[in-house]
């Protein structure tokens, strides 16, 4: 069967989420660029794949999907091999899958809103729009992030990974924005939460993460 297609670019956080899953299960894929500067995300061809005009979009044969976490779950279910880990916890029963889902949602609804504004203000807006960092937004976000990291530190004192003893989709979902956060001037914040820092370093050591990192910049010009 032909490789699946991921529409977007490797530096995009939500594309990276999908690529990580593909690397975890060892599935072959083709990355098809979408030229934002040329407005390609608004063309009928792309909107047909992703009606919100965003990346990633995904194609596997006749199946076209959007929403990175939905694409990720599809990949982890369909392309899982006996050798790849049960990242969704679905073989462990309702309770194990539930813990993965809880901490996947915590990333989306609590962690992401706290950490992403720092990444947007320090990297994305300056690079893409030449905008100046809004320090007030950064400071408020860091305050929120401290509260969230406090709960993570507590959680990781009871549990090796967020959802339990095994690495899961929940841990993986933290990679994209945290990677870029570590390229902002505020990376040292993680040093205040030693279990979180250790958990992050463990995540960064995964072969799938190293392969995806290789295409994501850590230095930016603006």
């Amino acid at each position, binding site marked *: 069967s032909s490789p699946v297609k991921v529409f977007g670019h490797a530096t995009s956080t939500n594309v990276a989420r999908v690529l990580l899953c593909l690397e975890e299960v060892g599935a072959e894929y083709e990355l098809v660029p979408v030229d934002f500067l040329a407005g390609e995300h608004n063309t009928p061809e792309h909107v047909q794949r992703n*009606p*919100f005009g965003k990346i990633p979009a995904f194609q596997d044969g006749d*199946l076209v*999907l*959007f*929403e*990175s*976490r*939905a694409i990720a*779950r*599809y990949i982890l*279910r369909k392309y899982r091999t006996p050798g790849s880990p049960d990242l969704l916890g679905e073989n462990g029963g*309702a*309770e194990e*899958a*539930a813990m993965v*889902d*809880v901490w*996947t*949602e*915590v990333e*989306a*609804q*609590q962690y992401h809103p706290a950490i992403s504004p720092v990444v947007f203000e320090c990297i994305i807006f300056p690079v893409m729009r030449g905008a100046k960092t809004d320090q007030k937004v950064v400071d408020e976000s860091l305050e929120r992030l401290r509260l*969230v990291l406090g*709960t993570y530190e*507590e*959680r990781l004192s009871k549990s090796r990974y967020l959802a339990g003893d095994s690495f899961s989709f929940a841990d993986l979902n933290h990679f994209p924005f945290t990677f870029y956060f570590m390229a902002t001037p505020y990376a040292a914040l993680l040093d205040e939460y030693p279990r979180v820092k250790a958990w992050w370093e463990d995540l960064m050591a995964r072969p799938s993460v190293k392969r995806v990192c290789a295409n994501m910049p850590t230095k930016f010009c603006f």
Partner: protein
Amino acid sequence: MAEPAAAASTRKLYGYELSSNSVRIAALLNEKGLDYELVVVDDTKSPEFLAINPLGQVPAFQDGDDILFESRAISRYIAAKYRSTGTDLLPATPSAKLEVWLEVESHHFYPAVADLVYELRVRPRLPGGAPPDPAVVDALARKVADVLDIYDAHLAAGNRYLAGDAFTLADVNHMAQLFAMSRTPRAGELVAARPHVQAWWDEISARPAWKKTVAALPLPPA
């Protein structure tokens, strides 16, 4: 929302009736005909409640010894664990389309609709709350309109419900916020103006389980 039970239920929903994410879970439990005890949480930052959900938000859900938080994780858990009780809200095999529309609710529908409902209905009723700001309301309504255009096109493309022919978890996850929006002055231009969205809402809101959920809500004046 409280279900009179012959014996105390092993299921506890921590929340309150005006929390739409608590209503999300009540609606689901009613669809499945599952009894539960509603534990009204007055102070989400109390030590007692933080022991249940360290993120300090409602709803939380206790099922025997298992404690879950994040409403979309709770809803996945209930739908999977109790799939053979009441309405089965999951397809026989995992559906990528279902996953997509679960994520669309989370990242596109909910943020847009919740913000509009907040400005129209919640913020003005807070202590010291001023009336809705027309310019803010218009901007928020435009965002909702853009999202609902995509829903209308999706439902028009041979989808009776969001995941296809069958009523699923994806539909249930929308109902609390759709209901809140249907009671605002913008419902006409947003929902009624989109015939497929209106027809879908008419159908799902006519379900007996939903009517039971609404009947138990202490509704403020429309």
